[in-house]
């Protein structure tokens, strides 16, 4: 009997609804990159358009060309590299000091309810004291040299970081602790070999966020009798109304921040490849 061709045998045309607007669904990688680039391009175009009209005084909003020219001037200037070096040192010193103290303290807060009770409400309180308001106190306590600037960045990041580390420790599934007890782990081994290891990717991500905040506090820190630094230079430019140069420094700060952020992400993905998260 000859096989009968029925409707079921006919291969249908494939029609998939490939909308880019499905909630939380992925879009092609090229599309994502193109959108990211267009975001920047859009702002650039808008900026050029607005600055070439007479809407705004060019002293306040220079044209992109003026900023480009300023960039070339600034890059040839030795003070830029000194500024970057000093600012980088201050941020990194304050941030590293915060991390070194915040990680053990955060682990204590996350692991022991006693530690949480003693430190968490206190930390939450201090966290809400605005850092710039501390400048006079810090000048008295730590002088007007590097120490007070580093300490200011430390205060800005430490209290945030402690809470985030404690949260990451609490996020470790309790069953991982239980299973290590039944395998014979003592309490110190459980902290060292299980809690800390399990929380590491999350803590590393908290460091990434805190590094960003450290750069924000840099500008505040350099209000204290600085002679160089990216934040200091911006203040100085503003005193002389050199707006194109201000924009150059702002863009440089953005570039530095974004690069560090990317670096943290890449390292996280490499080192903690075992972590089962799509977000990091």
């Amino acid at each position, binding site marked *: 009997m000859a096989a009968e061709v029925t409707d079921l045998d006919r291969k249908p045309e494939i029609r998939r609804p490939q909308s880019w607007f499905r909630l939380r669904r992925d879009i092609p990688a090229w599309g994502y990159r193109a959108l990211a680039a267009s975001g920047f391009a859009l702002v650039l175009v808008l900026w050029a358009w607005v600055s070439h009209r007479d809407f705004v005084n060019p002293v306040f909003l220079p044209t992109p060309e003026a900023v480009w020219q300023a960039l070339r001037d600034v890059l040839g200037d030795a003070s830029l590299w000194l500024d970057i070096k000093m600012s980088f040192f201050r941020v990194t010193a304050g941030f590293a000091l915060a991390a070194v103290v915040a990680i053990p303290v955060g682990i204590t807060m996350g692991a022991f309810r006693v530690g949480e009770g003693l430190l968490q409400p206190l930390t939450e309180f201090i966290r809400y004291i605005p850092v710039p308001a501390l400048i006079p106190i810090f000048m008295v306590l730590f002088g007007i040299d590097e120490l007070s600037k580093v300490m200011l960045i430390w205060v800005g990041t430490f209290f945030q970081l402690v809470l985030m580390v404690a949260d990451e420790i609490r996020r470790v*599934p309790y*069953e*991982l602790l*239980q*299973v*290590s*007890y*039944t*395998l*014979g*782990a*003592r309490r110190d*081994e459980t902290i060292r*070999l*299980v809690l800390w*290891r*399990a929380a*590491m990717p999350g803590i590393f991500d908290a460091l990434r966020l805190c590094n960003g905040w450290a750069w924000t506090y840099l500008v505040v820190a350099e209000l204290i009798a600085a002679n160089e630094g990216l934040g200091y230079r911006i203040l100085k430019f503003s005193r002389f109304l050199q707006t194109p140069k201000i924009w150059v420094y702002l863009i440089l700060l953005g570039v530095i921040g974004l690069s560090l952020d990317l670096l943290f992400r890449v390292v996280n993905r490499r080192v*903690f*490849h*075992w*972590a*089962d998260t799509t977000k990091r």
Partner: protein
Amino acid sequence: MKLQVRQLEKVYRQRRETLRALDPTSFQVGDGEFVTLLGPSGCGKSTTLQIIAGLEEASGGEVLLDGEQVLGPGRDRGMVFQNYTLFPWLDVAANARFSFALGGNHARHREAAARDDTRVDSLLEVMGLRTFSRAYPRELSGGMKQRVAIVRALANRPKVLLMDEPFGALDAQTREEMQELMLLLHAHDRTTVLFVTHDVEEAIYLSTRILVFSARPGRILEDVPVPFGPGLDRHPDVKLSVEFMQLKRKLIHLLHPGAHVDMDRQALLASLVRQSNHNDRKGT
């Protein structure tokens, strides 16, 4: 007796309310036995296991292992949980050997350490995990994760292996494979196993003895010996035998006395029909 549970009870107190999770319960497990605690959810069987593991405190009674009172968690009672509890930062081989790095354990005699090491390798081999020893947990299926967890617990040579619904999260086919592997391991190792499940077939197929628990507050309704031969004599076809069915029927009736009478199907159906008629009329 390997494991003795005497008058164990658990009461949760919250302000004025008290919740009796487990009425005073006693039982014993002999060396090399495979005993299952079978009961509906919330009957205190998991609580019993957690107390024996030392992970929860009893409100009364005591647990003795080899005549010694259990006071907290320890390596002599290995545990396999229902949820996947592998350490995600360690590969399969390192997960299985986690206990070797603990306590005074790394100070073991070199020969003993080498012997344990080969033992873990052969356990991984039996579990079909040899080619996955470098894989990380996120790359494994649920069944594979549980197999590693079992090897990890056995690597420690526990006196008792406690298993809390270890196959509860697996699909039916994987669960059957895991049951076969459990029979194999038990036949080979003769490790004493205390197993918790609410799956009647699983209980019969694996155990030498079943303790049937009542719903809350939990207590042992009956101590049911399983008449089938030990370990490897149990072919999957056993599940189709008349004796198996009879035992299954008996256990189901113990667990849900009168469950089939409680529900008046006709009345429920009638009420559904009434409801939809009513809605139809409203629609027009």
